[in-house]
Structure formats: structure tokens, C-alpha cells
């Protein structure tokens, strides 16, 4: 009897799981499927391709427009992530380990930034960056990305840092380790997972941005893939860009899928640990 109920419960949960998985995957599978369709079968309205082709991928990697945008996306997101995590780690260390006046203020400010409507910055940043010569450059995008990634980094990292048993550092020093050794051998390995998780979350944020990228760039110099996608027009005006757009979309989805597949546990713990603070 008891076994039967758990089996039935398992079946019910399994069914719910399937619904979630299907619902989450359909749009991704659909755009992937479109990217493999031949121009002739693109408009057949079927979910799966009848004829498979890699031509769309060849097309986008042959066009400078996409390759440049991909390089911009990767470069800008990586640099912004690196800087945001370093600055965030410094601040989070201070918040979780040190006593100093103004700490609450900093936490408050990051909360305000997290709630800040980014579109409100679009007009003034456009004008300021034009005057400073930052418009349509990498730093012109990296700056706002760091700013809006910092609250995320600070919250997540201080949650992680609070779980580190810092006394181990003292114990290591008592056992004869120098300050540097204690940090390298004891604290750094403990902090690394938190830093890594935060880096993933921040990278996803930067990778995702569309609003700043479309307003603060105007040429291929700094245009990222999401923006380039929305400007794709095909080789000639009679050519339908759908296949190329889908292929490009799949390419920039790959890193996200990899992160999610390999680091699901970390991402979930990172996002929830920052939120438990409620």
C-alpha cells in the first residue's frame, strides 16, 4: 500500500517534471530546428526540419558582421565580468568580515542600483559617452555592465563569504603558515567556488544585455550579438535572414546551455543564497 502511494506520487511528480522540461525547452528547440532548415523548407511550418543543412552556420561565420559582433560580445562580457567580480569580491569581503561605518549605506546603494530602471540611464549615458568619446567603444558598454552587475556580485559573494570558516586561516597561521600561505592554501580554495558561481551569473547578465548595447553602439566596433541579430538583413534585400538569425541565436545560446548543464547546482545556489536575505 505504502509502496503504491509513493509510486503514484513519483509518477505525479515525474509528469510535472516533464511538463516543465517540455515548456522550458520548446522555444530553444524550435529556434535550433529553424537554424538547420534549408531555405526551401523554412516556411513549411513544421516543428522539425525535413532536410537538414549547416548552410546557415556557414553563412554567419562567413559574414564579418556576425564574427565581429561575437568577438565584441565575448570580449566585453569577459572583461566586465572580471572587473565586476574583483570589485564585488573586495566589497563583499569588507561587508562580510569587517566592521566599518557606512556598510549599511553600501548595501543600501547596491540594492537601489539593483532596482534602478536601466532605461533611465540611456539618454544621459548616450550624451555623456558621446562627449567623452566612449560612445560605440568597448569601455562604453563595460562601464554600465559593471555597474549593474555589481549589486548581483556583492550580494552573492557576501552570502558565500559568510559561509567560509575564516577561523581556519588563524588555525593555519598558528600551525606556522605565513599570511600569504594561509590565504593561498586555505582561504582561496574555499572562496573559489563562490567567485566562480558569481562570475557565471555576472557573465550571463552581461551576455544578455540588449538595451545598453543597442543604444550605446552604432557600428560594428562595439555592437554585440543580440544587437547584430536584430539588424541582420540577409545578403540582398530579397534574401530572407531568418535562417541566419536563428543560427546566430543558437551560437550565442551554446555557452548558456553549457553553463546550465555543468553548473546547475552552483547557479541555483548562487541565485537562492543571494535571495535568502529577505
Amino acid at each position, binding site marked *: 500500500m505504502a509502496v503504491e502511494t509513493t509510486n503514484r506520487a513519483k509518477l505525479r511528480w515525474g509528469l510535472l517534471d516533464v511538463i516543465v522540461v517540455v515548456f522550458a525547452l520548446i522555444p530553444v528547440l524550435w529556434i535550433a530546428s529553424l537554424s538547420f532548415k534549408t531555405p526551401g523548407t523554412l516556411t513549411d511550418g513544421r516543428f522539425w526540419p525535413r532536410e537538414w543543412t549547416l548552410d546557415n552556420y556557414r553563412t554567419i561565420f562567413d559574414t564579418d558582421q556576425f564574427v565581429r559582433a561575437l568577438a565584441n560580445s565575448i570580449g566585453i562580457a569577459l572583461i566586465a565580468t572580471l572587473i565586476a567580480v574583483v570589485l564585488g569580491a573586495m566589497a563583499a569581503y569588507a561587508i562580510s568580515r569587517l566592521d566599518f561605518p*557606512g556598510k549599511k549605506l553600501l548595501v543600501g546603494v547596491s540594492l537601489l542600483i539593483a532596482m534602478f530602471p536601466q532605461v533611465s540611464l540611456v539618454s544621459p549615458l548616450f550624451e555623456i559617452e558621446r562627449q567623452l568619446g566612449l560612445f560605440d567603444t568597448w569601455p562604453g558598454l563595460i562601464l554600465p555592465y559593471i555597474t549593474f552587475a555589481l549589486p548581483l556580485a556583492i550580494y552573492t559573494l557576501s552570502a558565500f563569504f559568510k559561509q567560509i570558516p575564516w577561523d581556519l586561516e588563524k588555525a593555519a597561521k598558528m600551525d606556522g603558515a605565513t599570511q600569504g600561505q594561509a590565504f593561498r592554501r586555505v582561504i582561496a580554495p574555499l572562496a573559489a567556488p563562490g567567485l566562480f558561481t558569481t562570475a557565471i551569473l555576472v557573465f*550571463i547578465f552581461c551576455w544578455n544585455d540588449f538595451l545598453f548595447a543597442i543604444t550605446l553602439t552604432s557600428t560594428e566596433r562595439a555592437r554585440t550579438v543580440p544587437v547584430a541579430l536584430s539588424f541582420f538583413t540577409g545578403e540582398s534585400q530579397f534574401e530572407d535572414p531568418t535562417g541566419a538569425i536563428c543560427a546566430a541565436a543558437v551560437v550565442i545560446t551554446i555557452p548558456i546551455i553549457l553553463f546550465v548543464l555543468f553548473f546547475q547546482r552552483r547557479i541555483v545556489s548562487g541565485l537562492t543564497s543571494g535571495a535568502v536575505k529577505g
Partner: protein
Amino acid sequence: MSINATPTGADVAADETATRSGGRHAAVPAQRTGRRAKAPLSENKRAERRLGWLLCAPAALVMVLVTAYPILYSVWLSLQRFDLRFPDQREFIGLENYTTVLSNQFWWTAFGVTALITVVTVAIELVLGMGLALIMHRTLVGRGIVRTAALIPYGIVTVVAAFSWRYAWTPGTGYLANVFDGSAPLTERASSLAIVMLAEIWKTTPFMALLLMAGLALVPEDLLKAASTDGATSWQRFTKVMLPVMKPAILVALLFRTLDAFRVFDNIFVLTAGGNETSSVSMLAYNNLIRGLNLGIGSTMSVLIFITVAIIAFVFVKMFGTAAPGSDDGERR
């Protein structure tokens, strides 16, 4: 703040900051003595403060420089007639831009669209997110798989997802287009808005669910078992045990999602480009700035959006007080 025996100039300034930010600091000394067994030396104390400020300064500087200064500059720009196509006509015109925007039909339509999208999506996301949170937290089978799948909408680039939805509803191409007998749903207002909302909900429900799951993890298992032994149905356990414990997490999730939903831009840009009166306020501000090159009007809209978001946040925090993260008990965990 009577920890330091000899307040120096820096300390006095620091104490001022502390008092200015309110009586919440009353709890700090107790917390401090609680954490350290003996009272620290004032020399150490001062070094610690200096280190604290030094470590926080870069982050604080970047955040304030890139947001506070531009928003003030935005207020200044909004008081001028400033069209980049006619830079000679730039002049100070007081609140004229605000009258222009606030008496404009397009602004209020966009405002209505944004408000509608915000309310509807957040309400649906709360329900679906709670369901998803329960599944991710309590499922007996395939927990890893379901969590991995749920993270995909969260992580995917919004523009990519928007294109997927757009092609899904494009007549001829899409698998969903035939649902409405081959008509083009993205060319009509009501159906376009519905599709925008669907895309938003698909994309952000997992985030809502993750925030709610953080709250679910706080519900003590014993309490649920006790309620169960006392004969509570699962619905009663949900409303009487889980919801009260989760209330802070729910409010945080609602606040963040509401503010986020109000900024809706990417999906509308790709799905309808603002056609058929489906522009959101963000979309309208973008159009005035980049398409119209009208910095004065664009900045006015920026300021108005900022004020609206500030009001929403203020109402939430006032209504629910300390439930917001970063408040005293939140910060200490």
C-alpha cells in the same frame, strides 16, 4: 557609537554618516561584542575601518558615478529643448518637455501597456513560479533535470527567445501560427500583447521560482510534518504553514519582478517593434532618443520612468518594511 576612546577627525565624520543613516545602527555595538569575545583595540579598529572603506570604495565609486551622475544630468537635459538634429535650437525651457510628454497620447498608451504587462505577467508568474518552486524543491524524481531545464529560460538571451517566439507565430513559418487559422497574430494589438506577455512569462518565471525556492527552503520540515499529523490537508499546509514563512521571500520576489517587468524592452523590440500601439515606456524613450534623436524628450521620459519606479519601490518598502533585502535582519542573515 562610543567604541573609540579617542575620536579623530575621520572617526567623527564616520560617526556622522552612521547617525545620518538612522537609528538602525543601534544594534551594531551589540552585534559587534557578540561576534568578538573581547573589545578590540582602537588602533586595530581604525585600521579595520580604513580597510573596509578602501575595499568598498571602487565598487561604490563605479556604482554612484555611472548612475547618480547620469540621472542628475538627465534631469538637467530634460529641462532643455535639445534635439540633436537641430543643435542650434538648444535652450532652457523649464518644464515644457514634461507638459509635452504628459499631455501626449503615445506616452499614456505606452504607460498603460507597460502597466498592463507588469501587472498581468507578475501575477501569472507568481502563481506559476510558486508551482515551479514547489516542483523544483519537492519533486521525488529528476530534481536535477527539472532544475537544469528551468534555468534555460533564465539564462537564455532575451533577444534569442524573442526571435523564437516571433517565428513561432509567423504565418507559414511557425508551428503556432496555425492555431489562429493562419491569421498573423503579431499584427494585431491584443494578440501581440498576449504574445509579448507569454514571452516575458516564459523567460522570467524561473527567476521568480528560484527566489521563491529560497523561501521554501526556510520552511521547517518538522512544522509540515506536525501539521500533517494534525490532519491538515496539503492545501492547508500550503496556505497556513508555507505561505506565512515564505512571506518575506514572496515580497522580495514580487518587488524585483515588478520593477524588472516595468522595464520591458527586448521582447517588444523584437516581437512587434512597438507597432500597433504595443510600445512600452522604455520602447518609447528609446525611439525618441535613437530614432528621433531628441535628447530633451528622451531624458524627460527617462526621468519620468525613474520616478515611477521609485514610487513603486517606495510603496513596496513602506508597505512591507523590513522585508526588503539589505534591511537590518536581512543583512545579518
